[in-house]
């Protein structure tokens, strides 16, 4: 891959997906895009760049973006964000929404579904307190390919063993040949929609809890600030946002501020709240 090809790909990916690749990511680009070349019968990465320069929007363009932005994930990844959901966010939400009995959760980088399904399993554990409630989890991702897998809810034995306690495997999955299928009870709790975070997402509505983990790290600072500000707008006035361990709002925006008690947890900033039309007394 020539320097010009690499520069083109960096600019192309930045424009299409917001992905900010440093000059040291050359190896990553080569390793991720080589399979795309093979898939579209192109001999080299330079041929791929040549094709991208000529074409507009199609399966190859989508494949390039997906190859660079798809990340490995597993059930209950990093554990702490899910302990926080079970022990703090969900109990608070159950208290704060006792009158409306409606709860909306957004998994903003849902990938192949492990994060939204992990949240669904925790909600299922609290089912006794949620009788008559309308609980909706929305899973979005840039990649339509991963969302298709998420909808299917079929996982290999490697995937179900990383992070998923065996008790939950037995409880929520059935075997289908060599694979494991998550129960319809859980798949019915999650709706998946393709979404590029760089594009407007007002149409998704308002959320009480947003999990947006390990996706902002790929964006440059102005893009991060823009996405965070729009997430703040999509949040109910007393809602909460959880970011990844390596992500923060500090120095980027005041639309979200650290919760102060729990690492990685943020809520709407004062300026944002003042502008919000309604505020609920019991925040969570």
């Amino acid at each position, binding site marked *: 891959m020539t320097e010009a090809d690499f520069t083109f790909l960096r600019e192309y990916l930045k424009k299409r997906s917001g992905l900010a690749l440093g000059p040291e990511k050359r190896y990553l680009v080569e390793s991720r895009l080589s399979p795309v070349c093979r898939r579209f019968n192109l001999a080299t990465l330079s041929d791929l760049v040549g094709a991208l320069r000529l074409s507009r929007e199609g399966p190859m363009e989508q494949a390039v973006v997906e190859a660079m932005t798809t990340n490995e994930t*597993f059930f209950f990844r990093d*554990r702490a964000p899910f302990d926080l959901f079970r022990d703090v966010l969900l109990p608070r939400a159950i208290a704060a929404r006792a009158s409306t009995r409606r709860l909306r959760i957004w998994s903003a980088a849902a990938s192949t579904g492990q994060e939204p399904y992990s949240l669904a399993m925790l909600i299922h554990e609290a089912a006794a307190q949620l009788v008559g409630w309308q609980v909706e989890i929305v899973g979005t991702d840039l990649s339509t390919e991963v969302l298709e897998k998420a909808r299917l809810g079929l996982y290999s*034995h*490697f995937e179900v*063993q*990383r*992070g998923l*306690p*065996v*008790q939950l*495997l*037995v409880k929520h*999955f*059935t*075997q289908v040949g060599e694979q494991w299928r998550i129960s319809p009870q859980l798949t019915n709790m999650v709706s998946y929609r393709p979404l590029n975070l760089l594009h407007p997402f007002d149409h998704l509505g308002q959320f009480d809890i947003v999990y947006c983990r390990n996706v902002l790290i790929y964006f440059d600072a102005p893009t991060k600030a823009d996405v965070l500000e729009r997430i703040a707008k999509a949040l109910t006035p007393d809602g909460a946002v959880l970011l990844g361990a390596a992500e923060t709002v500090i120095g980027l925006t005041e639309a979200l501020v650290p919760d102060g008690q729990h690492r990685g947890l943020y809520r709407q900033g004062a300026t944002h709240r003042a502008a919000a039309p309604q505020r609920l007394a019991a925040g969570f």
Partner: protein
Amino acid sequence: MRTGLVVDDSAVIRKVARRILETLDFSVRDAEDGEKALAMCAEAMPSVIVLDWNMPNMDGYEVLRNLRQSPGGDRPKVLFCTTENDVGAIARALRAGADEYIMKPFDREIMMAKLDQVGFAVHRSAHA
């Protein structure tokens, strides 16, 4: 020092599991059958046992039953490790007192996830 015991009649599995546990700061012994494993446990209870099911003479269930009934035998975390990957086998192992279940083939990531699951801190940055 946290200690591990790998019980499997396959020398290859014993070697692989040993190596993974050792890179995660476990001091590891291994046994090729259940009787030897129980004798080792009687000498010193390990912190974690990776236990195969299908072994000659005494299978994993019998080892587990004997272990859980012996003095201090409730302490080790037992990771059942087998090629029997059906729900019925998993449920049976859990009823017999296993703490977690590893389906073969497994890799280092899975072993780390399962150890984490039963309460052992594992260093994700460490590589074999």
